């Protein structure tokens, strides 16, 4: 460029002859021709069809059972008790029975489900202090204002964990029992670990640093959330390492659901011992529920879900059906397009040549 300028004065102001400046960059100009679009549609339809069939087969191999226990059977008593706030301290245990026709093979996952519980309200979701739960000491004693009105109790003591989310933790507990054909009861062993995201358990939730202090001492000067029966450092009486902010149930609850009807993982079948090595055998089961969580205020429902999984998760009929429907729609469109192209297309005939 510089050379050109020196070369001839009369062309000094001539714009550069570069492909960019002259808008002649080599380019690919694709076009929707019948040769590309129609095969693409058929191909898409085929792919969706295959995916749909495959997914459907996969889904068929899973099993799932949902047991609504809001006021089923004897739980109705507990439901009535929980209607009154003043009975909050009173414990209530009820049992629900159900049976499985076909055995659940492989890993079986135990969920609790809630309906009409809005974990996705804006102010609810914001009402937490992640800095507190990652173990920042200043936030432990002085939680974020987002936790209001669950930041401090009436005495001015900071709440740990603060906020509406933690305060409303789901606190029913379940014992699943298998009644085999002979009538003997086997307690179904449930693993209550490994039910969280790896990052949640290891990064997002940390207890405040303990320098030779017990957890209880660390949390001294804070108080438990309003609706809790136990302080955060005593959540799991059986396992000391599962207490404080890293308690699995707390972590599961703190991962807010996107929709008002949701289920959360409670435990995984422990398959080391008979008769559960292959999963859950068919037969009668009963669940003993420590019925604490009140749902009648917000017209909610509670349920227990048992399911087996495949590579792509639990039982989910929507995806394969959606794929199949999409596939057939695309096929329909493709056929229509082909007909239109052959019959009415203005340059349809030409394009073949």
């Amino acid at each position: 460029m510089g050379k050109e300028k020196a070369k001839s004065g009369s062309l000094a102001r001539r714009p550069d002859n570069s492909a960019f400046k002259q808008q002649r960059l080599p380019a690919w100009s694709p076009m929707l021709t019948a040769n590309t679009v129609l095969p693409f549609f058929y191909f898409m339809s085929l792919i969706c069809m295959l995916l749909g069939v495959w997914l459907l087969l996969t889904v068929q191999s899973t099993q799932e059972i949902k047991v609504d226990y809001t006021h089923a059977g004897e739980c109705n008593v507990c439901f009535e008790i929980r209607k009154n706030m003043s009975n909050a301290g009173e414990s209530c245990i009820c049992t629900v029975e159900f049976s499985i026709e076909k055995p659940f093979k492989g890993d079986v996952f135990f969920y609790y489900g809630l309906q009409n519980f809005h974990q996705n309200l804006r102010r609810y979701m914001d009402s937490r202090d992640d800095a507190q739960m990652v173990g920042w000491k200043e936030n432990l004693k002085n939680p974020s204002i987002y936790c209001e009105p669950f930041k401090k109790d009436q005495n001015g003591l900071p709440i740990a964990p603060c906020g509406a989310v933690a305060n409303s933790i789901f606190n029913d507990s379940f014992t699943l029992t298998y009644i085999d054909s002979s009538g003997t009861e086997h307690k179904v062993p449930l693993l209550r670990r490994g039910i969280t995201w790896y990052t949640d358990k290891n990064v997002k939730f940390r207890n405040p640093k303990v320098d030779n202090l017990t957890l209880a001492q660390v949390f001294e000067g804070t108080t438990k959330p309003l609706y809790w029966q136990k302080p955060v450092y005593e959540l799991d009486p059986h396992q000391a390492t599962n207490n404080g902010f890293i308690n699995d149930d707390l972590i599961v609850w703190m991962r807010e659901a996107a929709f008002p009807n949701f289920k959360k993982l409670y435990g995984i079948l422990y398959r080391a011992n008979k008769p559960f090595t292959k999963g859950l055998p068919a037969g009668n089961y009963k669940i003993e529920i420590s019925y604490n969580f009140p749902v009648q205020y917000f017209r909610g429902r509670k349920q227990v879900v048992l399911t087996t999984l495949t590579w792509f998760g639990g039982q989910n009929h929507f995806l394969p059906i959606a794929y199949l429907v999409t596939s057939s729609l695309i096929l329909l469109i493709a056929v229509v397009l082909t007909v239109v192209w052959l019959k009415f297309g203005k340059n349809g005939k030409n394009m073949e040549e």
Partner: protein
Amino acid sequence: AQTNSSRRPKEERRVRANDREYNEKFQYASNCIMTSKYNIITFLPVNLFEQFQEVANTYFLFLLILQLIPQISSLSWFTTIVPLALVLSITAVKDATDDYFRHKSDNQVNNRQSQVLIRGSLQNEKWMNVRVGDIIKLENNQFVAADLLLLSSSEPHGLCYIETAELDGETNMKVRQSVSVTSELGDPNNLASFDGEVVCEPPNNKLDRFCGTLYWRDKKYTLTNQNMLLRGCVLRNTEACYGLVIFAGPDTKLMQNSGRTKFKRTSIDRLMNTLVLWIFGFLVCMGVILAVGNAVWEREVGSLFQSYLPWDPPVDNFLFSAFLSFWSYVIILNTVVPISLYVSVEVIRLGHSYFINWDQQMFCSQCNTAAEARTTTLNEELGQVEYIFSDKTGTLTQNIMSFNKCSINGQTYGEVTDPLGPQPKRLDFTPFNPLADPDFCFYDDTLLESVKVGDLHTHEFFRLLSLCHTVMSEEKSEGELVYKAQSPDEGALVTAARNFGFVFRSRTPGTITTIEMGRPVTYTLLAILDFNNIRKRMSVIVRNPEGKIRLYCKGADTVLLERLHPCNHELMNITSDHLNEYAADGLRTLALAYRDLSEDEWEAWSASHRCADKATDCREDRLAAAYEQIEQDMMLLGATAIEDKLQEGVPETIAVLSLANIKIWVLTGDKQETAVNIGYSCKMLTDDMTEVFIISGHTVQSVRQELRSEHVNGTGGGEGKQLQCPPPPPPPPPPPPSNLMDNISGEFALIINGHSLAHALEADMETEFVSTACACKAVICCRVTPLQKAQVVELIKKHKKAVTLAIGDGANDVSMIKSAHIGVGISGQEGIQAVLASDYSFSQFRFLQRLLLVHGRWSYLRMCRFLCYFFYKNFAFTMVHFWFGFFCGFSAQTVYDQYFITLYNIVYTSLPVLAMGIFDQDVPDQRSLEYPKLYEPGQLNLLFNKKEFFICIAQGIYTSVVLFFVPYAVLSDATQSNGVPLADYQTFAVTTATALVIVVSVQITLDTGFWTVINHVFVWGSLGSYFTIMFALHSQTLFRIFPNQFHFVGSAQSTLLQPVVWLTIALATAICIVPVLAFRFLKLDLKPQLSDTVRYTQLVRQKKRKPGRLGARGGSRRSGYAFAHQEGFGELITSGKNMRLSSLALATFASRHSSSWIDTLRRKKHTHAHTPPTGAETAVKITYY
């Protein structure tokens, strides 16, 4: 006079020479000019203040304030402040750069040196230190520093010459004269003691008017514009002069004239503003719906949920909660009108402007000027032009006059014998005449022979040309003469005489020295009977060395032939025939005559002339009468014909533009015959035309009647005439009357005179005029004033709602350029006034076709595609929140992470659409010149209008539905493969956001028609940046530092590792894209646009060519271009024996477009084949066909 000096500073200005103290009392502006707006300290506040005057910016500021209220804030403050800050700072940087350059040029001007007379001696001062009342000295070729009163000059009579090109665009020199009393104050000492006082009008912007009075030594002298030297002029041909500063700096007429030009907006701009308003309305509706939803929800459900989530303290009932929710949703949904829209539009336009500046094919190597987009806001309007208003002189023509033919004593010279024969040789004058101008071209050697043999008539003919004129000559070195002529015609005539041996050498006020056939002769100049528009002639009376007195006269044939001696009758008839021939060739003609005067006659006339000259009342009339008296009984010498050369490629350009359905109106100050001639020579008017209407009535009645009759001819009688047209239009013409007018527009032309135009523009006749004129294919308005030019443009703007473009080169076109939607200035010979007022400038009329058909068309296409996509992507993005509202209790919870909301418009989706908006092409530039019809969608506003907008919006909303409900349906029940449910908020947010980014990326790949490397980089880069940034924002590192800001930690990895999530995204993408693809294919298949067909043919040809060209692929791109040229579509059509597919494809077009352009093309080709092509024409034809 001094008593009320301080009382009336506003109404008049008092300046006393050499008295700074006195002048300082009035606090006149100093000569320091400041065009810059800011300095370092004021920049930030002033610039911000200006920017917040824009509605959009204020709106976003308002949103920002809303977000600071915790009860409302549904988004973090930075989601608005980051884009806003970005936009503000980009604009601020642009403003700062502009201002920096203004500072620089101000400094440069302010620091120019001038010589100021201080205490009797000349001192060098900077311009900015010159004060009102100072006397400054100017030397030759210096710029005038301020508005000066000319006091004295080195030339006799206090004369000085100035060039005013920078002021009014006129290149010819003008004379200024000082008041006689001051002209004697020659040297600085006298001037230092000059203490006259000037009382004059206050500063104003009237360039041609000045009135004031000089009080000096108890006498009054009237001052006029003739005594003033204005800032911006250049002193020429004058050694030095002295002037008194009257107006300085901002008060000068130059600065007073540089007012802000009217800000032009494009129709897309206006449409966009309307749409944005609608969207605001839509936003409010959404807000209201969601707020009502919130009220209902809070009453039915939320109130029950209060034990888990009590209402905020100020909220005590569901209605108040709904009110807050409304504002929260306004904040969330505000992204339907993203702030980046305005910035992106500006960036795209800027890019297009650069492409115009960079275009080599709009670079004129003769004058070394590239095209320049002087405004960056109008580009897409270039793709919608329907009317072009063109000046003639200097725009269509080169404004170079060449002496082409002449008739001497009944003999015509200069006829080119045979146009098809060998190119006649150009005459070489140098051996015969050393003073000849080497640039002069003449081909007929018989005339030179006639001069050489000493034919008396021929000698007298050229003598007249060398004497009868007002040209100034400048002899830089011996024999090197430079003529400065008032008009180029005159220069051409004097130059012709010079080459034929009658060299005008120099003049003094009383003499003219010529060299006749190598012999110096000095004539005494007795009188100049100057030219004016009424007289249409000029004469000189000279006394030759032998003492004989003769009057030489040249003028328009109509006036001159009336004043001949009766004995010229026969010669007059022959000459008239010649004149008619010349006029038919489009040449400008003058007749020449002389008259011998006896000494007595001269004495008598001289006395009456002096008497008329001294008369105080009706001086003009008396002078005219005196002139009339002597210009009688003249002897005819002959006639000259001057060619007003057309610019290169003008007929071709006009042909292409009219094929593009652009109507071209020529507005010229020239007379009717010249204008019509030019109309024919540039093929605006053709012999095929059914009728050429001429309106030249002088009264309202006659104009109305003429208009009416033609209207009837044009429309009512149109039925019959249509049948005569070569391509009969389809029998039932479309019903709307406007279409009817358009349909018959083919074959009529209208020529209207200035005085008729004045009547036609009156309110009661203008509709009639517009409808008649618009029915005509060509309209030529002659003898129009600059004001009328603007009125015509305004008329069309008012009645037609069409985009108008005005193109011109001179100061007289400025008004028209400013009032049209787009003003184009030809940067030619005549000054820069038009260019300064214009929006685009280039040096050749023919570049207009490239500007409109290539750049304008592309700009329009790109802008439309950009807007469609932009609205689509923002609706797709934002409306997801609306659907989510029904699931989250209308609590204004967002679907996405707040960082995603912040970055979506400015990072993830901005660059691909910008690349499309800047680089996209549907067909190559060459094709759009070959098929001017491709320009039509722009004129009809087809690519982006309210309908298209609603389609985009609908598509956006459809996408948002899919993007929300598919993930909802899948995820609400799905789990990870380790059993953890996927229905948590963060997984849902990441899935939806990823699906959104992918869907809009796929959509842009569908929309992009021209994939350059840049598009690839931007599209893939944006996707890449989305994943990179997301993983970074969801990383542990950031979370550890700011746990409360980055609570999405780990979401990206845990979500995107799930096959279900990817299956969901794939499903959503397929559902979003398949219908779009199907519709586009159907549209292409059933209703292909011309551009699609052209594109398809191109594609087919490329495929066919590929096997043969594989080896040569790396070769020069230019040759590939030329190849494409010859294979152009036009050839295919006309030969008719080509590939079946393309002719078939075209036939579909021919049947759809009522005005069959192929036939027009064919006819054009036909006429071309029959007209004998000149060299230049053939060359252009090859590139064009």
